[in-house]
């Protein structure tokens, strides 16, 4: 997946002024940066939730710029929003069925797979999603996004509002998902943890690319450390 010089924003205002990044097959890439850098906005623009005013988005070589979300999702991209990422008045099972909405077959097998990945959800499959704890909700949100076997998973701050312990567990699952062949684009405030998990990273600031490179390099970069890692 690749985004080239993406410009987007809300209303009249541009938030991103030409951001580029790429995610290779099976790769795990972090996007970090301060509040208001445009990290979440970037994911929304890639996924067709915000209009791309200039620039292009490619998925597996195909131009998907400004395609509607339901057209993007069938091409192998899945997205987990930061908040409101489950259907609260649907059961856990129904949430997952909705994740597989455009899937024609193999729903049952896929359900077994995601329940194996998130065993906490198995026993609660007929409970309403609103009854879940924050961590369980996040697991359900991840599980929902996996129902279509995406090639690339876009995650918007999966650790936000979770306890450190729960956040660690979620990151562990994300690493497992990536290990089984799904590329991940991870937007995070929690920069140190995100970088230590990823192959590469991008640093955004005020809607522009600031730095990029191997995750290890970024972790050791004194500028990054001073600005974003609280070192």
């Amino acid at each position, binding site marked *: 997946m690749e985004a080239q010089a993406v410009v987007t924003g809300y209303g009249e205002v541009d938030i991103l002024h030409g951001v580029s990044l790429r995610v290779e097959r099976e790769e795990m890439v972090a996007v970090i940066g301060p509040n208001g850098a445009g990290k979440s906005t970037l994911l929304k623009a890639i996924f067709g939730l915000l209009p791309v005013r200039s620039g292009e988005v490619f998925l597996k070589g195909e131009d998907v710029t400004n395609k509607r*979300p339901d057209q993007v*999702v069938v091409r192998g991209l899945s997205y987990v929003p930061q908040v409101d990422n489950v*259907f*609260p008045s*649907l059961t856990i099972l129904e949430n997952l*069925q909705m994740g597989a909405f455009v899937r024609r077959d193999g729903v049952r097998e896929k359900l077994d797979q995601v329940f194996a990945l998130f065993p906490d959800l198995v026993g609660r499959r007929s409970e309403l999603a609103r009854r879940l704890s924050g961590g369980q909700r996040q697991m359900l949100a991840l599980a*929902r996004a996996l129902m279509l076997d995406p090639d690339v998973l876009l995650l918007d701050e999966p650790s936000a509002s979770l306890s450190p312990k729960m956040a660690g567990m979620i990151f562990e699952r994300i690493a497992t998902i990536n290990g089984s062949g799904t590329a991940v684009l991870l937007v995070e405030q929690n920069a140190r943890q995100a970088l230590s998990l990823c192959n590469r990273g991008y640093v955004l600031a005020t809607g522009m690319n600031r730095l990029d490179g191997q995750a290890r390099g970024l972790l050791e970069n004194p500028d990054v450390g001073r600005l974003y890692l609280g070192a």
Partner: protein
Amino acid sequence: MAAGVIGAWGLWALIGALFIWAAVDERQLFVIGLIVGSVLALGAIGLTLIYGILRFGNFAHGDTMMLGAYVAFFFLTGLVKEERRDTSIGFGLGDLPGATDRLGDLSFGYGFLLAAAGAAIVLIAFSVGLDRLVYRKLRQRKSSIVVFSTAAIGVAFALRAVLLIIWGPEPRTYFAGITPKNEYPFDILLKTNEIFTFLVAVGSAAVVYVILFRTKLGKSMRAYSDNPELALVSGINTDRVITWTWVIGGVLLAVAGVLLALQANLKPELGFELLLPLFAAAILGGLGKPQGAFVGALVVGVCQEVSVAYFSAGYKPAVAFVILILILLIRPRGLFGSST
């Protein structure tokens, strides 16, 4: 009184106490109230579905219901108003051989059922067409809920005027003549029409329940109502969800309108009068929650009918209004409404 002073359980307990008291003290009126409530429920379910999916109060709901009832009248009798006189277009389904022969103790024959089915088809076309013509444009402009509801009020006025132009202001009935009341256990007197009405209404509500909770389409409608953006992100087709909402709402309105007109006289302003009980029922149940609208409508129906034992029947709309005010005071979220 502060808003939301009692929980859902408190409200259920209140309703339970009310129903037990009504069932013991005013048996006959209680049963009639359930029948009236079951018809209201069809309207209230449609209203709440449209609110849940499209996020606006459809003030044209009552008048659309009347459109359904009048269209069935037209299919049955072929009558329209022309130059202030009833004129027949020459054919109605009632003219088919044996179409008005009464089915058992019911007041109607198979012609009426065909006319009702025809009305349902017309209302589907009307509702989906209206969405394309009016509401879709407002969605594309991302209009606010106020603009949507104002547009719906405009549709309501226009519809009522059209009904007046085509069929005139005088009350209409599907069938003249009287049908006997039969005696049932606990000294309850009911016409077979009333039992038919109740069964059809509850059956239709059950079908909607199965659609919403057991089919993929229904689940996607509930998902969309819960979180439209996540539904979009999951690949759920928004246009299809909205179209089906109008289809289901249209069928329910046709059935409700026809059943209502079977009990009472049909007149153009009845739809507007129904708006209050419909909204009271939907809000009592929790806006956007079809199962809530069903319970809410039964409560409104029972309260309205039982009130006749104490006040003049002319106060029925006031009863709905009082329920609406009370629920907004003590639990604005209603029975099934959630805080999130």
